[in-house]
């Protein structure tokens, strides 16, 4: 508004002087130039409109659209790659967990297997030892019985020898056996 006022003030003060000075008055109001200005304006603005609407604007619009599409597809690609990487990492983690479980199972199996083997060996040894002990006990018993049999013979010999010393006459074997059995029978 102030600019309008300034213009109006200026024109009202300057115009009368200027009208006298310049041919044809105030140039913007000189109607003889209107046709030429309109002609050149139509020509230049028409050219500009054609250049902009046919060449420049579709091209710039295409550039902007292409950039948007590029950015969008790049972003989509990036998020896809990220998802793939995450899936891969998850897969690796799973494989690792599986391998760990496997290793544990194998270790466990080996442990139980070796324990079983040791158990089997120990029981075999124990059985063997027990059998040997039984055999040894049997042999001791046999030896003992055998020795006890020998003791009777020795006692018989000793009895007959003692009696021979005392009576000067050797007793019969049957009498000695009878006497010993009688003594045992007490």
């Amino acid at each position, binding site marked *: 508004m102030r600019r309008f006022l300034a213009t109006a003030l200026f024109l009202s003060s300057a115009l009368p002087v200027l009208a006298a000075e310049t041919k044809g008055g105030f140039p913007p109001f000189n109607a003889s130039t209107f046709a030429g200005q309109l*002609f050149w304006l139509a020509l230049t603005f028409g050219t500009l409109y054609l250049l902009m609407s046919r060449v*420049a*604007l579709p091209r710039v619009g295409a550039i902007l659209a292409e950039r948007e599409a590029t950015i969008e597809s790049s972003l989509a690609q990036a998020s896809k790659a990220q998802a793939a990487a995450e899936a891969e990492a998850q897969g690796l983690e799973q494989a690792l967990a599986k391998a760990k479980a496997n290793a544990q199972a194998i270790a466990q199996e080996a442990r139980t297997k070796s324990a079983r083997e040791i158990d089997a060996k120990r029981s075999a040894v124990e059985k063997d030892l027990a059998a040997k002990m039984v055999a040894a006990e049997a042999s001791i018993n046999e030896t003992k019985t055998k020795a006890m049999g020998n003791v009777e013979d020795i006692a018989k010999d000793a009895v007959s020898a003692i009696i021979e010393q005392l009576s000067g006459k050797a007793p019969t074997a049957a009498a000695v056996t009878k006497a010993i059995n009688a003594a045992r029978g007490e």
Partner: protein
Amino acid sequence: MAQPGTIDPIHQFEIQKLVPINLFGFDMSFTNSALWMVIAVAVTTLVMVYGSASRSIVPGRLQSLAEMAYEFVANTLTGVTGREGMKFFPFVFSLFMFVFAANMLGMIPGSFTTTSHIIVTAAFAMLVITVVLVAGIVGHGSHFFGLFVPSGVPGWLLPFMVLIEVVSFVSRPISLSLRLFGNMLAGHIALKVFGAFVAALLGAGAAGILAPLPLLLAVALTALEFLVAFLQAYVFTILTCVYLNDALHPGH
């Protein structure tokens, strides 16, 4: 021509024939005005066509400029009219770029500001209103004139309201053309006046000591005029968008 030493701020608006051309009895001479129109178109074309020629995904300087201009006008247009307004995009874009380039080129010392002539701004305003009328009538038929009939107004008031709406519609091209014309004209006159003050004071002996004062003002005004050159192109464009919005959505 003014005598040396006197202030003649109007001389810069004079149209000078560079190449006299006469077509069908009309004076169609190639003038300084026509020359600067051609330069405005050439500069805009350089940025928009040459700048976008490489079609690179990562833009260079000129392509950035072209994209910035594209997005600026596209955002302005869709912000006011919505997506449907994009069919007028080439028109609105050409309008903005022409007015903006003409205003900015006018800031070059010794150049000619084509938009400081009322016939040019009036032609643009009439073009805008014609496009609005044609688009409105083609798009909505007689329904377009519902624009002049506000809803929710008591019956006895309606004739007055319609009258006011019609007057406001008719005054649109007038205000549109006068705003741009007045701003460019006044700004350039003010610049010239303060510039001439500096020269006059320097030539006036002891008073020359005061010469920096109008010089400072001229510098400040130059900065302001650059802002105005952009702002008026923007205002012209956004008002065009607002009027186009009426043609696209006539209901109040």
